């Protein structure tokens, strides 16, 4: 186990002291990286928070292993997220992106690729879920965390049969959105 695994544990255990330690140790490095690549200080802190959340989700997969220093891993996740963010913003005027820094084909990326892709899929899926009607969102969210669908139906004031029918409609609708999303097309 890598000695920097402790930082991962801080996130998994939601350890307040440990998380503050992560900020003291790594925040400046992330902010400098983002500021040198067309971002502001606020962008830097946003990327840091989003990347730490992504790392938390990756670490929740049982087979995830930290194979580099936490700093290298964190900066890798931040770079990838920031590059995606820049693409999203379609910022044609971004000229100050350091291509060397954003050499995303480095070795450490390959080792983490599978988990980074999984978490990106999760992030996009959650965004797509948010575009469904509120009823669908409620049904899907509840059915994914509890297997007792009879109880869910009762709490929503629905019959069990109607809940099952509606759930399949909602999941099909979400499936259509997933199918149409370029990220899922490219990462089947």
């Amino acid at each position, binding site marked *: 186990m890598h000695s920097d695994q402790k930082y991962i544990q801080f996130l998994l255990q939601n350890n307040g002291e440990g998380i503050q330690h992560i900020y003291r140790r790594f925040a400046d490095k992330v902010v400098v990286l983002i500021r040198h690549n067309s971002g502001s200080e606020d962008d830097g802190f946003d990327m840091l*928070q989003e990347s730490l959340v992504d790392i938390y989700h990756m670490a929740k997969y049982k087979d995830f292993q930290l194979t580099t220093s936490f700093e290298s891993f964190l900066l890798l996740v931040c770079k990838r997220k920031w590059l995606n963010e820049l693409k999203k913003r379609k910022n044609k005027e971004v000229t100050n992106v350091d291509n060397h820094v954003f050499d995303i084909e480095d070795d450490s990326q390959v080792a983490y690729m599978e988990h980074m892709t999984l978490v990106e899929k999760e992030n996009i899926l959650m965004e797509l879920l948010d575009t469904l009607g509120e009823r669908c969102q409620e049904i899907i969210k509840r059915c994914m965390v509890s297997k007792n669908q009879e109880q869910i139906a009762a709490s929503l004031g629905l019959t069990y049969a109607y809940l099952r029918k509606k759930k399949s409609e909602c999941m099909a*609708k979400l499936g259509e959105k997933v199918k149409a999303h370029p990220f899922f097309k490219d990462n089947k």
Partner: protein
Amino acid sequence: MKSREELIQDYIDNVLSAEDKQLFDNLYESDAEFRAELKSQEEMVDLLTHRLSSDEQTLRMSLTEAEAKYRKGKVVSWKQWLMPLAAAACILIVVKFVFFPPDITLYELPEMRSEIVRGNQNNEADRYEHAVEAFNAKDYRKSTSILLDLHQTNKTILQYQFYLGLSLIGEKKFDEAARYLSPLADGESVFQQEASYYVAIALTESGRTEEAKQRLSNIEQSSKIYDKAQKLLDKIK
């Protein structure tokens, strides 16, 4: 007969009946598209279950707190900024109170979302879409009429009841709006938090500010509408 989507979900949830299992097996054997759809749905269920069973919100609160502490600690000297900040604050206060009316965004109604389901062309869905059009065009008299009808036809769909309440607010029928929204605010559906907020709007408009305050203070910090609720609470206090 069950749809393909229902068969897939029943299979994933392990609740296929013997009869449906035969149907499922036939489709699985003969239809490559069905197999692809099943694979995609299984992947979605795995990803959603993983994400939704996490405790992301609690972690985000800790991260936000750590960021605030860290950034606060980095501010070396307030003194050099104090005078310009104080001057800017004075100007903002003057601009806010002299040139701008009170914050009307707190009373704005949200957009009503379309629920179009591909292939679902039934009458109820059509009527709902008409309600969406009318509501978003602020033709609340029309949206109320359609939503009331839908609500009376199917009281299990809480979405109808929620937007009916909002539509009544749009029509300035605040007492009626509160009557439809209050059960949702007292329930535990996805509409609970937002319903509490709009009940509070209806109560405020009816002059029942104490009850409105009570509703607003019950809105949870994790709710999307929490910030607006706090602003409204400050305003009516």
